[in-house]
């Protein structure tokens, strides 16, 4: 793909992002409930003080003007002050974001690592007992609600057998200097294998809960893509050339079967990043998802707006990345 083509694709994402920011802005603003009243709920503020706060926060200005201000600031990376934390929104988000990214990445990698072998086996042993069992299992995996499955895992592995911790990101007595915000990375940087292992143990249950539906979905995508590819002429031709079974399956078939899988995996990563509120809440994971849930209840507009916009940007960018990967895997769409 040429650079100009790349830029063109990037430019195409702008209208989407503008649309998203408009919707986000309108949705939260038009929802009933006054942030000033909520913020001042417990204090004995006079109406004048409330009006003053409203003016300070810019909430007294016309809607269109507020949107333009929001947009202008957003472009420069300024999402305002979190009503709640009384700190810049971006600082609050940046503090929580690494925990969410870490959890999501581990979950998606886990899902891919499980889904590809299972999907390949199911496709190769098509219509066998294994295939049917895997299909049933993946239906089960897709349909399990995360909050239920997460609690079940906690009950079994944390409460009953004490194999994994109940929640949180690490043990209380294990503090590692924060450098990147990614706990696994930071503990390695600090040369603390104990903290790294503790981090992994805390990641296990939430990552499994978050990754399970994705693993199930991806396994089905891998299976159907692989099954289709296996009936193709080029697989027959590759076998006729005398290549080993392994090479035919893992090189000729899998490379083509992964093309749709990459797209789904990238989109799923976006969904997981933006959709882990439940898992973060169940496991007390100090990530963005929980922050957003708290902020919605508190009508902390600037933070919700920034977070949703961040979700949208991430989603669009991951789609863009999926396109790039798709191009790398499939020479036919190389432009």
């Amino acid at each position, binding site marked *: 793909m040429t650079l100009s083509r790349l830029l063109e694709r990037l430019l195409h994402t702008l209208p989407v992002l503008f649309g998203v920011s408009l919707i986000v802005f309108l949705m939260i603003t038009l929802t009933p409930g006054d942030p000033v009243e909520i913020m001042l709920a417990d204090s004995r503020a006079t109406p004048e003080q409330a009006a003053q706060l409203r003016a300070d926060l810019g909430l007294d200005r016309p809607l269109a003007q507020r949107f333009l201000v929001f947009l202008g600031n957003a472009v420069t990376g300024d999402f305002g002050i979190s009503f709640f934390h009384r700190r810049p929104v971006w600082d609050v988000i940046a503090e929580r974001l690494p925990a969410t990214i870490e959890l999501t990445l581990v979950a998606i990698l886990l899902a891919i690592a499980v889904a590809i072998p299972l999907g390949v086996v199911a496709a190769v042993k098509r219509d066998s007992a294994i295939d049917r069992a895997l299909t049933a299992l993946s239906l089960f995996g897709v349909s399990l609600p995360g909050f239920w499955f997460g609690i079940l895992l906690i009950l079994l592995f944390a409460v009953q057998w004490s194999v994994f911790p109940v929640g949180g990101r690490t043990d209380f007595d294990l503090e590692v200097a924060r450098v990147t915000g990614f706990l696994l990375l930071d503990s390695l940087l600090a040369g603390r294998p104990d903290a790294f292992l503790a981090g992994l143990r805390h990641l296990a249950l939430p990552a499994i809960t978050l990754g399970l539906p994705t693993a199930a979905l991806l396994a089905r995508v891998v299976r159907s893509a692989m099954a289709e590819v296996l*009936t*193709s*002429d*080029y697989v*027959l*031709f*590759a*076998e*006729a*050339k*005398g*290549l*080993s*079974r392994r*090479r035919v399956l893992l090189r*000729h078939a899998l*490379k*083509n079967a992964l093309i749709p899988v990459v797209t789904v995996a990238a989109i799923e990563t976006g969904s997981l990043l933006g959709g882990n509120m439940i898992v973060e809440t169940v496991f007390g994971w100090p990530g963005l998802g929980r922050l957003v849930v708290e902020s919605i209840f508190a009508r902390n507009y600037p933070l919700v707006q920034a977070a949703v916009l961040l979700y949208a940007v991430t989603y669009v960018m991951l789609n863009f990345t999926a396109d790039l990967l798709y191009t790398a*895997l*499939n*020479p*036919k769409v190389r432009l």
Partner: protein
Amino acid sequence: MRATDDRGAEGRGELNRPRQPNAPLLRVRGLRTVFPTRRGPVVAADGVDLEIAAGEALGVVGESGSGKSVTFLSVLGLLRPPGRIEGGEILFDGRDLRRLPMRELRALRGRQMALAMQDALSALNPAFTIGQQLIETLEAHGLAKDARVQAAALLTRVGIPSAAERLDDYPHQFSGGMRQRAMIAISLAARPRLLVADEPTTALDVTLRAQVLDLLDELREQDGLALALITHDLAVVAERCPRVMVMYAGQVVESGPTAEVVVRPRHPYTRGLLESLPRLEDPDRPLHPIPGQVPDLARLDAGCRFRNRCSMAVAACAGPTPLVDLGDGRASRCLRAVEVTP
């Protein structure tokens, strides 16, 4: 002189042992390939016998579903499940391929017997370059010394200009005719002794078809390549294959020297095929399509499978109709073989 030539062209490992003189390279006896279906087993190849010698070309003619492709996929051990071989012998250079372990059969594929397919666009993997697909074939058979040079030479041989530069092209960057020739180059990369060409020219225009067929003729003459040319086009067979085998509904219905079969068919189905062909020298001749349809392969009886479409059918056709040797290398399944052509 000829003998030393043969030896030179056959420096190829474990199968390079003296063969019995006149023994065919491929000899199939009573091949029975079955596909279980919901409506019962379908015998896609039913008692097929055939022989191909080195340097020989056998034309295999029949409409879709006649069992011609299934027969040769069985030979190559490439049947897709649930299809399986239930009976018969497949002797390649004296060895029964049905008894070979999978690993040894795999080593023969590409190296001793190769497959060329109808549609190169779907036979070539879109995700790999032509060069990669050529070279991996060489590698699979331990021939990868100077692989790129060899690969370029192979492409040049099939008539692809500036071959060395085109090795890094992907299949979709080739034109249709070049792609077809590149695929044949890949099939022939490890210099197999038998090429099964399944409709290799159907997707090509007349000029390209002639080029590809010329190439196959040349390989047959120079390298002693044995060729099984599977096609539904009797005209191609008449032009290129000294011997022909006509299949119908899973069975061989007629076989013999092409020149004679075409002039004096000994089976009504062959005659039907010939009558449905347009002829250049007699463009006003009416064409006669064969009436009726191929019988349901899951619901066959012991009788002749063509009798429901045959104008010569008699009561006895409902009984067994074995393939009968008529002498002079000809055979037919028709009870009234001698009456087919007056």
